[in-house]
């Protein structure tokens, strides 16, 4: 990790870097949520940072804090070998306003990590090309890694998907397998009746 990157960030963004800290040898910058992508872009493109290796995006839920959630991003530079942790605090106690800019335009690897974060915490990444659940199924209720989601919670039974060929994104409803539908798509038959 690198103290130098923190200094650079503070010099570049000033008050948009809310706080910086170093603990256990990790350097952390808490950035203003509105500057999330801007800071990420700078970290990647500035030659002194050169954070070209995207490592991780996740979130942590602190129900007692306001803002309640922390979105945490870990980055590394291949050439310099330094790392940084970037955090933003968003969302109120009802998890409203849980939105932050997507980093997919900066590192395409952020795609799945942000989907997982959305799935587990309900963080909406604005500008994400394909934000849908990844580990859980579409019918899942709630976001399991939030602290107010009880670990022994059971989920409603999901009906057997009659239209086995229902298209999950990125396929639209009318894409693919047109000739199977005429005889096998029961739901469509019911609609017709």
């Amino acid at each position, binding site marked *: 990790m690198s103290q130098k990157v923190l200094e650079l960030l503070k010099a570049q963004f000033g008050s948009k870097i809310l706080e910086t800290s170093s603990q256990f040898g990790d350097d952390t910058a808490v950035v203003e949520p509105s500057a999330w992508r801007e800071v990420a872009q700078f970290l990647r493109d500035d030659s002194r940072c050169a954070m070209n290796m995207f490592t991780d995006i996740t979130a*942590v*839920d602190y129900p007692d804090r306001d803002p309640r959630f922390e979105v945490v991003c*870990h980055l590394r530079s*291949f050439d310099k070998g330094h790392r940084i942790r970037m955090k933003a605090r968003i969302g109120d106690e009802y998890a409203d306003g849980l939105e932050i800019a997507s980093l997919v335009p900066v590192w395409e690897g952020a795609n799945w990590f942000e989907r997982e974060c959305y799935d*587990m915490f309900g963080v909406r990444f604005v500008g994400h090309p394909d934000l849908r659940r990844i580990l859980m199924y579409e019918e899942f209720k709630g976001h399991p*890694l939030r602290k107010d989601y009880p670990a022994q919670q059971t989920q409603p039974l999901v009906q057997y998907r009659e239209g086995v*060929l229902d298209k999950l994104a990125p396929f639209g409803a009318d894409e*693919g397998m047109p000739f199977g539908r005429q005889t096998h798509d029961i739901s469509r038959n019911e609609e017709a009746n």
Partner: protein
Amino acid sequence: MEPLDEELEESALELPSEPMQLNMGPAHPAMHGTVRIVLELSGETITKADVQIGYLHRGFEKMCERGTWTQCFPYVDRLNYVSPMLNNVGFALAVEKMLGVTVPERCQYYRVALGELARICDHLVCNGAMAMELGAFTPFLYCARAREIIWDIFEEETGARVTHSFGRVGGMARPPTAMFKDMVRSGLPRLLFMVGETEKLLLKNRIFLDRLEGVGRVSKETAFALGWTGPTLRSTGAAYDVRRAHPYLVYDRMEFDVPVGSAGDNYDRFMCRQEEIRQSVRILEQVLDQMPDSGPVNIDDPRIVLPPKEEVYTTIEGTIQHFKIVMEGVKVPAGECYSYTEAGNGELGFYLVSDGSGTPYRVRIRPPCFAAVAGLQQLIEGAMIPDVIPTFGSMNMIGGECDH
């Protein structure tokens, strides 16, 4: 099916020209039972692909928030269940980083040795399975036979063949057995022989090579942006290995090369893994020479390490120590830390948040193959269906790790 002897109009016999949608997995033999790839095909060419994971999601991170730090070990075992020891060591190192303790030297060597054995396992399974999915069954059996040598060692050391739960915060569950070094010494040449045999079977095989060379190519920059690490990244020519870039344990005393590829295709990923097996053997030989035969394995701190069982049963101090650690857990200082080690698939990160109690507040694992599988879609789009098999195989997706 409609009966074929039915009278059909001419127009009904015309094949529709729309693209076809095809489900690969989760029940496909090459999908390791845990992934579904929805393909849209034009002929045999893939025009669109969607990789869907989550079939092995067990809420690992949620479960970790319910037990003590030590109780996470069985869970991390089941992340990458092909090389559980590397996860054990990685998690132990992460907690130790927060506690600010370093395990004794003997334990460090022991962890390196067990970790390298697990890494060989991982690569053997990956390459063997990849060959098998391409129809070459014999190499897989050779690899399985070679893995058996390692599993025998693990069984002797830990009592379990697959999920060992052998790591502990501040050390290992038990010190190395007396025959550990001998077993590894006698096992390695046999293992190398079988690895060589595997290569002999495969590397001059036209069918095998045609489906590896030039297929699933990735550039270095894309691999970086995708968050790739480990053999998949190294195959593109970027020599990033956590053991070399940020040495932990005693890796800074080891001499080994970081093999890199040049093209970033399936062949390079295969060969990187093969070469890493040899490098791991090299590390193992050095570890066996340097590892002390006696000395403590666990750190000496009653707040972290369990007392010997006979003390628990006979002295009140041992009972109290045992009780406190088991019931309340190791108290980890409040804060957060990101710790990373080189696992079989690349950088295995643990982002831990502690509130100062004996229970983790948040355990986030950064599974290396999650990033790799995330990149699969763009690799197979535009390729042919048969290319999916080796490309997916070379990602070494391990469901437990990828799906948490």
